[in-house]
């Protein structure tokens, strides 16, 4: 019998009492397409709670609002700039509270700033959050009080630049984990979040800005909605089997809600919102709700993919098979002495240059 066949079990039959013996009959036959330890999760689901998806939402809103404000300043759209700046200020006051309250030891939040670590999106994000928070506050205060206008503008621009990172780094936050649905969507997630941020900022601006001055906001809403929903579609397609969490239960409901609210809201903003403030408000609210739903969809989908071991085992097994196939004769499975060892660079067949230029 070949020891090299990936997944070969030599006819070994696992006995899973709950599955096999719930009705006291016989034993489990061997042809489940993956094996696990009593169906227990392999990785741990995150300890994050409701504050976090809302943080993604408000972070996207405030970040993209700062960007919109900056663009408006540059383009000389002062009304829009003012509204967007103040929106950013409002959200910037909420943002950190959400994050800090989710900590296990909230009093120690300042420990986030002990270092700046590129391998940790949360580290980078804490700095970006702080910097954006500072600049958005300055810009907002300047706008409110009318004082230090040059500082205000500079802050607007800075907050705008930082805001683009604030709005997208959160995607990195979730994809830089072992959670299958998140990690495997690491390319698409930033674009979904970017789109959502843009749509949120545009929608919020369309709500608080008079119709006449809100055209760029309405455009941004549509642009964002298209990017958000488009990237989400691409993600689900590319996830393949890992898209399953998006197709069942609460996650699916949220997903459809997000789709409907975002599409409907953006359409309403774009078409009716150019004539009616009320429509803009309605459409804007729907879009905001849609963006929030999208964050929640992704958040919950991650948890579902973390809980069931099949989402960890099956893709990994497939990856191993592909590696074995591309490596030709090199067997996968029990390691034998001297066989695959390649010193120093730690080259593995996944070829991702792992082991060189390690960060951290």
């Amino acid at each position: 019998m070949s020891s090299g066949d990936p997944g070969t079990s030599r006819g070994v039959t696992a006995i899973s009492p709950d599955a096999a013996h719930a009705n006291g009959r016989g034993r489990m036959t061997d042809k489940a397409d993956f094996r696990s330890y009593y169906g227990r999760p392999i990785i741990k689901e995150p300890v994050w709670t409701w504050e976090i998806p809302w943080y993604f939402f408000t972070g996207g809103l405030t970040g993209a609002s700062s960007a919109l404000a900056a663009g408006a300043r540059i383009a000389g759209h002062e009304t829009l700039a003012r509204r967007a700046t103040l929106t950013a200020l409002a959200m910037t006051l909420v943002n950190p509270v959400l994050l800090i309250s989710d900590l296990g030891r909230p009093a120690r939040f300042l420990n986030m700033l002990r270092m700046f670590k590129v391998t940790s999106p949360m580290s980078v994000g804490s700095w970006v959050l702080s910097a954006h928070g500072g600049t958005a506050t300055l810009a907002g205060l300047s706008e409110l009080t009318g004082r230090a206008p040059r500082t205000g503008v500079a802050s607007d621009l800075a907050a705008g630049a930082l805001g683009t990172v604030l709005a997208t780094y959160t995607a990195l936050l979730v994809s830089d984990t072992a959670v299958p649905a998140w990690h495997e969507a690491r390319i698409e997630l930033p674009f979904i979040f970017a789109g959502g941020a843009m749509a949120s900022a545009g929608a919020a601006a369309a709500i608080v800005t008079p119709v006449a001055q809100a055209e760029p906001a309405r455009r941004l809403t549509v642009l964002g909605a298209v990017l958000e929903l488009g990237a989400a579609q691409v993600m689900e397609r590319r996830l393949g089997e890992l898209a399953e969490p998006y197709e069942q239960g609460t996650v699916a409901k949220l997903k459809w809600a997000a789709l409907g609210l975002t599409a409907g809201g953006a359409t309403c903003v774009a078409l009716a919102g150019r004539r009616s403030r009320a429509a803009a408000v309605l459409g804007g609210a729907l879009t905001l709700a849609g963006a929030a739903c999208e964050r929640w969809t992704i958040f919950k989908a991650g948890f579902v993919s973390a809980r069931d071991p099949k989402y960890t085992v099956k893709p990994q097994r497939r990856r191993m098979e592909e590696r074995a196939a591309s490596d030709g004769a090199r067997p996968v499975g029990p390691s034998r002495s001297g066989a695959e060892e390649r010193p120093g660079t730690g080259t593995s067949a996944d070829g991702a240059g792992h082991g060189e230029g390690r960060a951290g």
Partner: protein
Amino acid sequence: MSAPEVTVIDTPAWAGSYGDEVKPRVGFFTDTSICIGCKACEVACKEWNHVPATEYEFTGHSYDNTGDLGSDTWRHVAFVEQRVPVGGVAEGAPDSFVAEAHRQEILQRSGIEAERDGEGLRWLMASDVCKHCTHAACLEVCPTGALFRTEFGTVVVQQDVCNGCGYCVPACPFGVLDRREGDGRVWKCTLCYDRIGDGLEPACAQACPTNSIQFGEHDELRARARERVDRLQADGLAEARLYGEDPGDGVGGAGAFFLLLDEPEVYGLPPDPVDTTRDLGEMWKAAGLAAGAIAAGALAVFAGSSR
């Protein structure tokens, strides 16, 4: 057979930080083929580290009522009951004495059927622990620096720094870390940092009666492990394998690695674990592009519109 060559992995301890204080890398070789499932490791660890007891729960998962590793379980013994094919007694394990009896015509005389195609039972037992990866995702994503690399190459959480952000929890490909309820911080195996500095071995290794848990210098352990797995395979245990020993794997090899008798997922371990930050380049690139898209969008929407 001469001892297999083992290339020493440079210790992951930060040379820049430790300078001369860098010690030889240490770790665990857990040989699950001789684990007798006594759970002394679980108890010794809790006693030494004052880890709280967890919920009392009859899981029905064989003799494993502990469940998995977490903030309050740093050594976890897994139990898997399996049916394994037995190819008839006569050709079973080496030195079958029924074959001998046959040869001495005893079976013939008594007319007893010697060939039994049936199934035997196997009970896998394995003590799981934090892997102290060479490329540790938990350490890399920790924003406060609470998780750090010791001079022994191990990974430890500083309890006075951790603010419980919980990022390390889903980052670990093995599901080792968790936040302790009521405490707010993340706790995990320290590889008995407070013992090894004084020349003691970790509590679990000391308590293990059969030496299934072996502590020592990492390269020595690897050499020993390779000999052991070669021997087991030569003895007919084709499924014996090392797990976490290969520096070419997705975490750069583990400080605490294992000898398993079946596929990793059977024990609740990921078959192909990867340090998530391996893909960091890709991820930052995508984030950068997405951020750029926002910037571009925030400018583009003003094209040709009145103020």
